[in-house]
């Protein structure tokens, strides 16, 4: 026995241990006002179902429970949008990727930054919208080393006089919307085990719904409901494991036979593989108040390679409908059973009532990582259509009898084997960046990438003192050469109506308004307004950095319509710039290095909020 380390030494590791967060109890707030939107003063309305329909405000990142990102405002429209100008700006002082959406509640705007996750409130009644308060949650720096793909945060949520948001180090925090004082903090994810939190919460019936990130670290995915009052855990639904952990019980009635059976979250995995099976919940949640069901997606199975986890790997890479009261599952549909391509099932689910055939169907729409645009009956989970919205070589659509994806296994990436023209690649036809739906045009506006990938043999890597090997994956532009586009999609016909091609992947969210204008941003930093019916470019403004944020619309205290968006390159592809990755390595950023080698010339990092209105700055 050698002298060094003759016993295993126990020591606390300062700075990396998750902080046991203090839990402050709810203070009763003033009673709700009569009007949904007073011109000034505090809104403490508990009726989010009503508030999310008010086009003057933007009380949740997706605008409304249906996640349409449609604003009924039309002061800014196709005929005057060219007069849009900057009204005011705000520098976040943060250089990581800004994927978030601002919120506007009454006369206050709220904004949460990427790590270190500082929450700002802006007073919209005053010129230049000065900061009303800010709250610094002191997010642990160690969380940065755990986050897979930049240190993003996708936004906050508002309910009953409080703002709720997640921190990269795994906490959900409630802050008094008026004073900026913290009300409670609940530690949910453990960065020491690779879990982080990046998603925006959704509040439904007094419950704050949040999920975890970190599938690549072998965590087990979950969605958790917290009591908005005190932060206590009301329920937690895991994405793998026995039915009792997944909250599958007597109310569970999936449409397809392959999703029926006992404990499929165990039996569709070899051995105990489900224990570290992934299925994290880092995307979006929608809610149908009439059906009283929430809808959300689960991420890819991990950290196993596909051949190490034969089986369907329930309940990863699919979508759940659940009761928000107790979390009990109603139905599940798996977009990518036994996922071969890192095609997470977390993309947003947009709810609409569509005329299909002779009937009006309550549907949800999903532009999936796997390249298919799904229209699904949200009462039952039945797939009504699934059409490719990008070039696809990895599957041949969906078997409409069984609901099962028809995969092309020979396109799967294997270490040591060259596989070319895998479309869509790991980031999918579309990743997290949310689309918008206009009831006025009946079209869905999909921000997406146009990429394929080659798996080219073996690469030696090293992590935590362990050498390992894997396929060296290199992304490349898809057919046409443009690496991204905003596509207007007819969900009933299942085909594109127009397409605005972009040089880089469109990694920003989309916004559509009753003025028939679609807003989105590019990775070069252009903020664009296009005609919702034709795709014609109507206006553009070059912001300081690439845009990967989510644009919103609201009516200011002065009665004018405003459009807001965050600029600030980053995210999974944008980390090429924000983290200064070495593009000589084509596999840098897990495949982005080569295909986005020119992004560093196109933009530089730095977070800034831009707010636009008609006639400003002119």
């Amino acid at each position, binding site marked *: 026995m050698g002298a*060094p380390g003759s016993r295993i030494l126990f020591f606390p590791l300062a700075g990396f241990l998750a902080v046991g967060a203090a839990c402050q109890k709810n203070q009763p707030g003033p009673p709700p006002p009569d009007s949904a939107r007073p011109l000034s003063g505090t809104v403490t309305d508990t009726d989010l179902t009503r508030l999310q329909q008010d086009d003057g405000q933007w009380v949740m990142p997706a605008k409304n429970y249906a996640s349409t990102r449609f604003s009924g405002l039309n002061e800014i429209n196709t005929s005057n949008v060219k007069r849009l100008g900057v009204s005011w700006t705000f520098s976040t002082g943060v250089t990581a990727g800004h994927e978030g959406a601002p919120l506007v509640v009454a006369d206050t705007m709220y904004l949460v930054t990427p790590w270190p996750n500082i929450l700002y409130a802006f007073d919209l009644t005053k010129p230049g919208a000065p900061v009303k308060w800010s709250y610094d949650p002191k997010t642990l720096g160690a969380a940065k*080393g755990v986050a897979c793909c930049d240190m993003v945060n996708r936004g906050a949520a508002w309910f009953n006089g409080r703002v709720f948001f997640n921190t990269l180090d795994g906490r959900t925090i409630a802050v008094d919307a008026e004073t900026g004082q913290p009300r409670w903090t609940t530690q949910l994810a453990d960065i020491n085990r690779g879990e982080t939190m990046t998603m925006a919460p959704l509040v439904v019936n007094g419950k704050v719904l949040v999920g975890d990130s970190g599938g690549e670290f072998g965590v087990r995915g979950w969605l958790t409901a917290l009591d908005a009052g005190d932060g206590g855990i009301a329920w937690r639904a895991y994405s793998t494991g026995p039915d009792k952990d997944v909250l599958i019980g007597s109310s569970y009635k999936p449409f397809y036979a392959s999703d029926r059976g006992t404990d499929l979250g165990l039996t569709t995995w070899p051995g105990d593989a489900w224990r570290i099976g992934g299925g994290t919940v880092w995307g979006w949640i929608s809610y149908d108040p009439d059906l009283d069901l929430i809808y959300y997606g689960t991420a890819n199975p991990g950290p196993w390679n596909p051949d190490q986890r034969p089986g369907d790997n329930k309940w990863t890479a699919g979508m759940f409908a659940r009761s928000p009261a107790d979390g009990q599952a109603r139905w599940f549909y798996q977009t990518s059973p036994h996922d071969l391509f890192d095609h997470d099932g977390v993309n947003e689910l947009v709810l609409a009532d569509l005329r299909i055939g002779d009937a009006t169907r309550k549907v949800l729409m999903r532009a999936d990582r796997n390249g298919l645009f799904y229209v699904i009956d949200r009462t039952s989970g039945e797939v009504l259509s699934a059409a490719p919205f990008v070039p696809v070589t990895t599957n041949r659509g969906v078997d409409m009898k069984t609901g099962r994806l028809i995969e092309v296994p020979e396109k799967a990436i294997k270490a040591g084997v060259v596989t070319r023209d895998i479309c869509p690649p790991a980031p999918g036809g579309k990743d997290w960046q949310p689309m918008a739906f206009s009831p006025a045009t009946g079209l869905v506006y999909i921000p997406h990438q146009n990429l394929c990938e080659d798996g080219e043999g073996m690469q030696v890597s090293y992590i*935590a003192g362990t050498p390992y090997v894997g396929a060296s994956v290199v992304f490349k532009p898809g057919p046409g050469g443009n690496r991204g586009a905003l596509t207007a999609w007819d969900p009933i016909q299942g085909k594109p109506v127009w397409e605005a091609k972009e040089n880089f992947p469109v990694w920003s969210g989309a916004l559509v308004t009753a003025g028939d204008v679609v807003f989105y941003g590019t990775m070069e930093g252009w903020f664009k307004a296009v005609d919702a019916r034709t795709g014609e470019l109507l206006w553009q403004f070059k912001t300081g950095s690439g845009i990967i944020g989510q644009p919103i619309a609201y009516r200011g205290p002065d009665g004018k319509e405003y459009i807001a968006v965050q600029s600030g390159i980053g995210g999974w592809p944008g980390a090429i710039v924000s983290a200064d990755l070495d593009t000589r390595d084509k596999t840098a950023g897990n495949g982005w290095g080569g295909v986005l080698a020119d992004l560093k010339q196109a933009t530089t990092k730095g977070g800034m909020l831009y707010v636009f209105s008609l006639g400003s700055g002119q």
Partner: protein
Amino acid sequence: MNARAMLALALCAAAAAACARRPARTIRVCADPNNLPYSNREEQGFENRIASLLAADRHATLEYTWWAQRRGFVRNTLKANACDVVIGVPSRFEPALTTKPYYRSAYVFVTKRDRGLHLQSFDDPALRRLRIGVQMIGDDFSNTPPAHALSNRGLVPNVVGYTVYGDYAAPHPLSGIVDAVDRGEVDAAVVWGPQAGYFARFARAPLDLTPVSPRMDTPSLPFAFDISMGVRRGDTELRDELDEFLVRRRGDIDSILRAFGVPRTDAATEGTGS
């Protein structure tokens, strides 16, 4: 020159030998603060020992930049110019300029000696009957070579996955898989040599460590890796200096590796440690 100046000159000349030994430079090492047996903040790992040897050899003070060795480690340390050398990286490690290898180790089978399993090959039929622990990476389409090798042979239902990261709140995050063999949770584990060699010493029952065979699986899946020091790409001056150090102090480095039970598949000086 006045008398005073001459005196100063004489003093300096007299003190020259001592001056030369005074730390004139700082060796800046990038390391994980909680990654035994390699390194920790208390400087108890073998990479800490090698770093101390290097600093002493260069009459330099030693300074660490601590960062968890996860995705972004090189980017946030070496590449950010916060430090200049990573003590251990695979010799074919793209993100850094690497020295000549100073040791070579392999993935090893870890079993309890009293079980008498004598595992040597991934093709041993006994593997089908055993519960086998293996470490998982989770980077897309990447994994540890034994994880690939086992699934290539259809050894799947009896495989138990442990994340390579472990629980970073624990005092030694990497020990879990070897502990699992010791506790009988798995019959065997396939573990990277330096980790297996170190943690096997703390097992309650004696453990056997056997380098896996074949040494290379088709198609071109290696189980043994050369380990070098890593510096910033382009920093050939430091790389050359380290190469010279590694050759000249090879015996001392081998002693450190032997003291930590690192299984070697190359020839170490003064007899191999394995």
